[in-house]
């Protein structure tokens, strides 16, 4: 007689703020089977391109997700710019880089917090989110929005950061980095955290690659794929090396993100140092005609915006492939064999973003 427990997991679930739906089959607490289902957040926003002018769609694009909002806008704008062959001014590229990395910082800190919450480490959650607030303050001061920045536009950016603010940010980076390192130490060294993470949800290097995983999920398994290496925005000037861990378990994925905090801080520092003067945007004339797969490295990995214009103000098609969608197959492979207690931890380890996954 199979002693199997069948439990619905989500869509409403205290540990996962977003609606994730899994049907779990357990033996005792061992996960023997898991079938995911999505679609609770599907809005159909890709189709809005047909109702919004391509310049206005930026506002929709940045609401594909409220966490890496800026990167979606960036990815979209870069795609349009590529199609329309617009060369964006350097200062805009640098500022885009700074905001991207700020987004990554706040996204990773947010994730670390949720991850800690998933492990039942309440204080660590609190600490991560407390740190995150300092990033949000910077974002609000420089863009006017905590989570939806609204500064990226086709052809450049809408707001500048004054030199005074840049200097202030630069000064704040050192103490902030110290705080991040203190936080990172807990994630990387604490025994109870290690107990929960090590050896959990292992995806081997080849599997991760073959399954099409992206971002820290891929890099945690030892594959050095990070689109920032392609040098979009200012990354080409700043010199960038992807962060890679090899173990392929939840701990490795966590370590990748922790170390990316440090690398982001470093990138911001260098971007401020090398900030060129100049205009913020160029005038956009005409309408996009052509297609392009715009790719950007988000906190969760590679996002692809496929944009196709037919010379009118409305795009013919936007197709957004987000890293979480790419990571779902890996997740499905990771879960069986975990314990029930590990389910949120494993699920969170890919840093799922249902909002942009389901669009």
């Amino acid at each position, binding site marked *: 007689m199979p002693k199997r427990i069948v439990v619905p997991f989500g869509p409403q679930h205290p540990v996962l703020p977003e609606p994730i739906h899994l049907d779990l089959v357990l033996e005792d607490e061992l996960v023997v089977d898991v079938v995911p289902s999505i679609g609770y957040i599907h809005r159909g926003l890709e189709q809005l391109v047909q109702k919004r002018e391509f310049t206005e769609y930026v506002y929709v694009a940045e609401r594909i997700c409220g966490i890496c909002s800026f990167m979606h806008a960036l990815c979209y704008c870069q795609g349009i710019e590529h199609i329309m062959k617009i060369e964006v001014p350097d200062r805009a590229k640098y500022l885009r880089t700074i905001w991207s990395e700020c987004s990554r910082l706040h996204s990773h800190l947010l994730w670390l917090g949720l991850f800690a919450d998933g492990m039942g480490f309440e204080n660590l959650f609190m600490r991560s989110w407390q740190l995150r607030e300092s990033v949000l303050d910077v974002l609000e001061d420089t863009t006017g929005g905590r989570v939806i920045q609204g500064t990226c536009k086709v052809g450049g950016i809408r707001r500048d950061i004054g030199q005074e603010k840049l200097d202030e940010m630069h000064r704040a980076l050192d103490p902030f980095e110290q705080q991040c390192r203190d936080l990172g130490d807990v994630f990387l060294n604490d025994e109870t955290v290690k107990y929960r993470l090590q050896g959990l949800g292992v995806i081997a290097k080849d599997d991760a690659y073959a399954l099409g995983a992206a971002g820290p999920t891929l890099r945690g398994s030892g594959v050095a794929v990070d689109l920032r290496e392609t040098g979009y925005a200012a990354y080409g000037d700043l010199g960038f090396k992807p962060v890679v861990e090899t173990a392929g378990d939840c701990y490795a994925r966590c370590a990748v993100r922790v170390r990316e905090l440090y690398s982001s801080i470093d990138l911001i520092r260098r971007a401020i140092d090398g900030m060129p003067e100049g205009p913020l945007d160029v005038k956009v004339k005409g309408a996009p005609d052509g297609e392009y*797969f715009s790719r950007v490295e988000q906190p969760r990995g590679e996002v692809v915006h496929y944009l196709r214009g037919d010379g009118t103000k409305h795009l013919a098609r936007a197709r957004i492939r987000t890293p979480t969608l790419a990571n779902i197959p890996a997740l499905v492979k990771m879960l069986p064999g975990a314990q029930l207690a590990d389910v949120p931890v494993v699920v969170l380890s890919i840093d799922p973003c249902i909002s942009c996954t389901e669009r």
Partner: protein
Amino acid sequence: MTMNEEQTTTSVALEDLVGEVRGLHDGGYRLVQIGCTDIGGSYEINYSFDKDYQFKNLRLTVGPETEVPSISGIYWGAFVYENEMHDLFGIPVTGINIDFQGTFIKTAEKYPFSVTRRGDDRCRNA
């Protein structure tokens, strides 16, 4: 744009699809995405691959009712895209390893992308 990545697009016939994909798989490419576009009466399906930031696209053009073979036998993770393709566009995909039978993305209206909806009801401030 300092976009230095190459993007190549090659058209592929329906019957060559699986073979081509296998070739890319064996060549060490990873699957980036599969996406469809409605090009008025028929669909264009893009299979995107990447290796060392070299972006390759296989492009398949099919009619509305054409059955498309699944590549999930080669790329296990392809099922997410193929289910999506089915649920949003109504393209029948055969042989998906995890076939959600149209429940992957449940929408208020069936196959919302299957009809060209451009230009309809764009009445601001209605």
